[in-house]
């Protein structure tokens, strides 16, 4: 069996069986992409490749995996389980790496061998080649030889003596092997085609319909070609998976083949796909160079087909193509969907064509009849070898409309197109089921499948002829049909597969009812109309500033309450902005604040920028996002912005119920109004809650009864219950059920404290205190559980905590119990403890610094010792009974006591600080206030005498004196160092003196030495000279016999004087 690839892209190609000349297999790849900004493809979300046989059955599917989605993932092959990539190749993870070849066993016993130039598969004995891949080859008869010219030729796949069953697997194997071969031998890697099957800019019809029940008319026009497909085969289009829609695109955009292709779309979706695959690559006249991606391909092909196209093929000129045909059909009288411009354009080429044929006749140039740049400039209309197509279509009796148009030209052409080598292998006969096939220039076979006769088609044809429009149904009718379909779909989603539409294949609702039924118009809004109007009024006040329209403001002034207008006049600033710059909408959840904001803004013509404080919590983020928005205009004025506060009130229940009923009818829910009003009551008017509940109910059953509402709203809004209400319900008799409900919600820390604080107030007459004992037992368990939970981080225990408080109910519920208050004693205690801990800290700091001086004290630092022993006694130590008398006149005993006290206080860094009390009285406060530790219940213990103000003043004074003395002492202590330097300097002074003395001595020595003459001989000196020198000797040593005793003291002070060595004698 010899199979020819019709495309270079092996993942999007047909495999034509050469023997039968029919496509045997089709390989199709689809991918969905994750798109970033500018619609650029960021990542591949999924990529699948399917192999379809000629019976339109999918026989194998490859799910690509990996980050890039280009390695083999899950593979499904007909009649087998899903297999992994490795299993396909006999579970081998690693490959034998012979340098020049890649040998991999396959699951069925075959062995794949890949070399740089070839790829073949051997039988299990590895001798017989059962399959071979011919790359870029030419078929000569039955054999295939490599093409002598590079880039020419097709790829072929040859299988010998293989069971039919093995082929799918081998095809899959081939795909992988070829990819691996390219990778292994550094051949150009296989490029995965970027075929976008869904979403994004190239939205398919299915997408349009599925996502948007009411697509704007513009969109429909844009896809008018597809609309036609829709009308031809409504059901099928919807069954086409969005991912496959690309192929529908493809074949539609073939233009010429559009009509022919319709029948393909008739059969089923898969066929539609195949048709796309089939016709697109074959094209009518596609040249070999244009082997790119499918879509591009089809467009190119369309261009070459272009003769029949309206030659408007821009990027999204889809709509114009049929128009073009339509135009031809009508012989330049276009009607239907063609608008004025289209008519112009589409009638244009007709003339051109006429001109071109003339031209051609002159130049006798068969190809490239003309190239015409149409208005857009980028559209190349290459009417290439048009006669081929023309002739063919002329022959085709199935297409009377087309032949009709072409007739005038066709006749001319036949005469002048003698050089064209087109041949028709098959004569087309009306009604025969033989496919039409033709051979193009390059010898490619083209298969055109005939459209089976169908009523609708014949009608179409008739209509076509009658209206002379390609769209057999006027667009408004199409629109009507569409809206009927969508309405049906919306109203009766449960109607089952018999009624067309989606439900059979994907009944999953991807939309919340809340979103679906969100009002989109101002008049749809529910609730207090005044509130809505007020919001709108405020918004309109901006109109003059934003849009520069005075009119709107005036009208609004007339229409609405004038109060705003008055305000407006009063406070109008230069920009005519309203007085209040910010609008604050407040109200409980689900009353429609967001909806109102959106609707009103849209209504007033604004674009809505939303900042959700639940995502963007920091001021920075808000700043970042609002500022750019404001940058263009002026920001909020210098004045403090005022906010207009609009408080939401609960919409009247009846409106809510009414709206709910209409929604229920829409969704096919049978709801009685009793149930609905119950629902509204339970949710306290929260529309969102209502809708969510309804949707929830819908998921299970069709009927909405009161009971169902009750059960499904159980626990709703429970989190709101204030804890005082929880506490009071714990302590007062209530239905048991209520208590259970309470247990379901999470009780916070405070609740147990609440329990703790309150329980002892109750059941005063319980003799044995047994209840209280039990209660405390529960509390302790609670404490231990929560403590363990926190320390061990076992937060799984959290749900069990609340249950530990439930026993309080049976123990303590009591009619007419006192009111439960928010627990605060524990908090007070905590605060007090904190304060005291701080005091302890400062005290220990004092002790510590005292410990610097004497090491022993720091042993007191340990917390417990400090708290239990040191704190009480230090207070007693520092508060001896003392008379507030002048320290000068105290008895020596008292003076000693005072001295000791001051000493201790100074060393512990305790001070008395003078302060003015609230009543203006001066007091001395102990700092740090360690006296709190002997003060319980605001009273000091009796044995500590209370020091009066005067006493403290006395002590404080003494402390100050002591501190000054200590400072003096400290400076005194520093003295040795300064004195040392002085001494040193004196020493150097001495040194100088000594050297000086020595020098002097030297001098003296020289002088004393007996004078010698030039030759060293002693000179006898006269006696009086020596006597005189002797006399000076005692004179020099005179200071030794000083009469004064000198003592000096260096006083350290801040003297700017220069210190320099001075002889003592200079002071004398």
């Amino acid at each position: 069996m010899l199979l020819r690839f019709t495309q270079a892209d092996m993942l999007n190609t047909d495999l034509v069986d050469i023997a039968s000349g029919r496509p045997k297999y089709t390989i199709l790849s689809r991918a969905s992409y994750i798109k970033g900004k500018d619609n650029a493809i960021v990542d591949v979300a999924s990529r699948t490749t399917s192999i379809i046989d000629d019976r339109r059955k999918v026989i194998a599917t490859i799910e690509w995996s990996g980050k890039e989605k280009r390695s083999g993932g899950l593979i499904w092959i007909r009649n087998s389980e899903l297999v992994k990539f490795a299993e396909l190749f006999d579970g081998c993870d690693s490959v034998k790496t012979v340098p020049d070849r890649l040998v991999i066993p396959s699951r069925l016993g075959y062995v794949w061998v890949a070399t740089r130039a070839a790829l073949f598969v051997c039988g299990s004995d590895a001798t017989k080649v059962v399959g071979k891949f011919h790359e870029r080859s030419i078929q000569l008869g039955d054999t295939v030889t490599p093409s002598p010219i590079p880039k020419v030729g097709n790829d072929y796949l040859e299988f010998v003596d293989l069971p039919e069953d093995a082929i799918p697997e081998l095809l899959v194997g081939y795909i992988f092997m070829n990819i691996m071969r390219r990778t292994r031998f550094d051949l150009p890697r296989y490029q995965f085609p970027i075929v976008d099957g869904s979403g994004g800019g190239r939205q398919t019809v299915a997408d349009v319909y599925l996502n948007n029940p009411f697509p704007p008319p513009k969109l429909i026009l844009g896809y008018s070609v597809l609309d036609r497909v829709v009308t031809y085969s409504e059901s099928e289009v919807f069954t086409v998976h969005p991912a496959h829609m690309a192929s529908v695109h493809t074949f539609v955009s073939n233009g010429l083949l559009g009509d022919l292709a319709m029948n393909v779309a008739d059969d089923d979706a898969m066929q539609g796909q195949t048709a796309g695959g089939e016709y697109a690559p074959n094209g009518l006249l596609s040249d070999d160079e244009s082997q790119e991606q499918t879509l591009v391909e089809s467009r190119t092909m369309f261009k070459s087909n272009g003769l029949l196209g309206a030659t408007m093929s821009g990027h999204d000129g889809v709509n114009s193509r049929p128009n073009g045909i339509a135009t031809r059909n009508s012989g330049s009288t276009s009607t239907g969907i063609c608008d004025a411009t289209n008519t112009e354009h589409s009638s244009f080429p007709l003339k051109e064509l006429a001109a071109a044929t003339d031209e051609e006749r002159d130049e006798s140039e068969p190809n490239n009849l003309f190239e015409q740049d149409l208005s857009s400039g980028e559209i190349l209309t290459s009417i290439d070898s048009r006669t081929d197509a023309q002739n063919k279509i002329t022959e085709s009796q199935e297409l009377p409309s087309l032949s009709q148009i072409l007739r005038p030209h066709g006749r001319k052409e036949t005469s002048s197109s003698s050089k064209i080598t087109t041949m028709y292998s098959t004569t087309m006969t009306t009604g025969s089921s033989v496919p039409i096939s033709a051979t193009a220039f390059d010898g490619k076979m083209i298969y055109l499948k005939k459209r089976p006769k169908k009523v609708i088609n014949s009608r179409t044809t008739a209509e076509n002829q009658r209206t002379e429009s390609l769209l057999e149904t006027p667009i408004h009718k199409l629109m009507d049909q569409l809206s009927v379909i969508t309405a049906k779909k919306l109203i009766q989603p449960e109607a089952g597969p018999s009624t067309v539409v989606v439900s059979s294949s994907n009944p999953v609702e991807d939309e919340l009812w809340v979103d679906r039924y969100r009002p989109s118009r101002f008049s749809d809004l529910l609730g207090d109309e005044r509130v809505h109007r007020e919001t709108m009024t405020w918004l309109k006040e901006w109109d003059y500033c934003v849009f520069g329209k005075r009119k709107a403001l005036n009208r609004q002034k007339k229409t609405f309450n004038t109060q705003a207008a008055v305000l407006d006049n009063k406070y109008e600033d230069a920009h005519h902005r309203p007085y209040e710059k910010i609008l604050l909408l407040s109200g409980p959840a689900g009353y429609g604040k967001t909806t109102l904001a959106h609707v009103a803004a849209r209504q007033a013509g604004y674009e809505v920028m939303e900042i959700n404080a639940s995502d963007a919590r920091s001021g920075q983020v808000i700043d970042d996002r609002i500022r750019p928005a404001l940058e263009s205009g002026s920001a909020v004025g210098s004045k403090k912005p005022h906010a207009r506060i609009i408080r939401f009130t609960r919409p009247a229940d009846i409106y809510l119920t009414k709206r709910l009923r209409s929604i229920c009818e829409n969704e096919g829910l049978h709801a009685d109004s009793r149930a609905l009003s119950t629902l509204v009551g339970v949710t306290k008017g929260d529309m969102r809650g209502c809708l969510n509940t309804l949707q929830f109910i819908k998921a299970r059953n069709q009927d909405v009864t009161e009971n169902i509402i009750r059960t499904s709203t159980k626990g709703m809004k429970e989190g709101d219950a204030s804890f005082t209400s929880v506490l009071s319900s714990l302590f007062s008799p209530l239905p048991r059920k209520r208590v259970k409900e309470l247990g379901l919600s999470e009780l916070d820390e405070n609740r147990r404290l609440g329990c703790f604080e309150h329980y002892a107030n109750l059941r005063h007459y319980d003799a044995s205190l047994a209840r209280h004992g039990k209660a405390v037992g529960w509390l302790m368990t609670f404490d231990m559980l929560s403590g363990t939970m926190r320390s061990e981080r076992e937060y799984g225990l959290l749900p069990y905590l609340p249950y530990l408080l439930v026993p309080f109910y049976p123990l303590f519920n009591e009619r007419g119990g006192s009111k439960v208050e928010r627990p605060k004693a524990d908090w007070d205690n905590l605060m007090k403890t904190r304060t005291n801990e701080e005091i302890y800290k400062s005290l220990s700091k004092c002790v510590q610094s005292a410990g610097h001086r004497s090491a022993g004290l720091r042993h007191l630092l340990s917390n417990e010792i400090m708290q239990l022993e040191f704190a009480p006694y230090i207070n007693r130590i520092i508060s001896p009974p003392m008379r507030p008398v002048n320290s000068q006149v105290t008895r020596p005993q008292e003076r000693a006591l005072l001295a000791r006290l001051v000493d201790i206080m100074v060393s512990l860094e305790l001070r008395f600080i003078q302060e003015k009390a609230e009543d203006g009285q001066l007091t001395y406060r102990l700092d740090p206030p360690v006296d709190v530790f002997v003060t319980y219940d605001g009273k000091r213990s009796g044995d500590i005498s209370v020091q009066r103000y005067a006493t403290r003043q006395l002590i404080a004074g003494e402390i100050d004196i002591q501190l000054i003395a200590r400072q003096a002492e400290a400076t005194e202590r520093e003295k040795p160092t300064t004195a040392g330097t002085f001494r040193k300097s004196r020493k150097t002074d001495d040194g100088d003196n000594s050297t000086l003395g020595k020098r002097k001595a030297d001098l003296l020595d020289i002088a004393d030495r007996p004078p010698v003459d030039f030759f060293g001989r002693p000179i006898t000196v006269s006696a009086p000279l020596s006597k005189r020198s002797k006399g000076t000797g005692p004179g020099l040593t005179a200071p030794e016999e000083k009469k004064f005793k000198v003592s000096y003291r260096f006083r350290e002070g801040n003297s700017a004087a220069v210190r320099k060595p001075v002889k003592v004698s200079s002071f004398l």
Partner: protein
Amino acid sequence: MTLWVDKYRPHTLDDLHYHERLSARLRSLAASGDFPHMLFYGPSGAGKKTRIACTLRQLFGSNVEKLKIDQRVFMTPSKRKLDVNIVQSNYHIEITPSDVGIYDRIVIQEILKEIAQTQQVDLNAKQRFKVVIINEADSLSRDAQAALRRTMEKYMSNMRIILCANSTSKLIAPIKSRCLLMRVAAPNADEMQTCLEYVAKKEKFDLPPDAAKDIAEDANGNLRKALLVLEALKMQSPDLSGPLSIAKPDWETYCYKVADLIVQEQTPARVMEVRSKFYELLSHCIPATVILKTVAERVVEKVDEAIKADVMHWAAFYLLKEARMRIGNKKIFHLEAWVIKVMSLYKHFMFNFNMEDF
């Protein structure tokens, strides 16, 4: 000049007043050159730290008293900063890891590693090793104790550890087995009296023997407390003559009040009253265990013989299962639980008694 507690703290083993045999033993240990890890334990105020300091001096000489105090910052894995005060000399380092609560393990690990990996650089040092003193070892968390185990063996060549604890019950067995246990018992009344008299003599005042006896008895073996009381007394009434009223610490007095309240009346209203008192005590940073212990002792004194055991049992139940208090974070629950238990016990007892009477 500072407090007497500090001023008359002995600095050498020879100066110690009591436990002569212990001192002798320490002296010989210090001299032997094979100094083990040690665990000093005994009641508060018995002189553990004094003995540790004296031993250190015996080991390293007087240079060990040149201390510097610095604050080190440790980082927990959760990026929390811990400030720890460290007292150290060239030869030893003293830490109180329990200051940082549950993060003590990090402190222990960091410091020990640091010490253990550095060798003694001072060539004149008498010993090759450094000493790490860990105060309040009994409040070390289990993790921290586990962290100690291996270190104690591994770095034996560079470091000795001296643990100081009130009781060994909370230390894990592996730690205990690695240490030489040194029990420092509380001094008896006579010994304390001697100390007090010694101080008085040094301070040059007369301490009447009766007063000394009273103080010593009141202090109940806690010499530090005795000295503080002595100083307080001396400040309050300089001549120390006449009948002495030895002040109890205020919290103790307060606890007694609470005990009286419990015994007087057993109603829910009283429970509330007691609770507020407990709050007051707790807010003064008195540990809940101490509160419970003190109150329970007082209650036991007051109640009838028959239920004494029960009262104590329940106190022990809540006290000894101290884990309860440590695990939970609301101590007041546990205190109150005991109060209610005692109240209901007492009520039951009275009720039964009355019924039998009539």
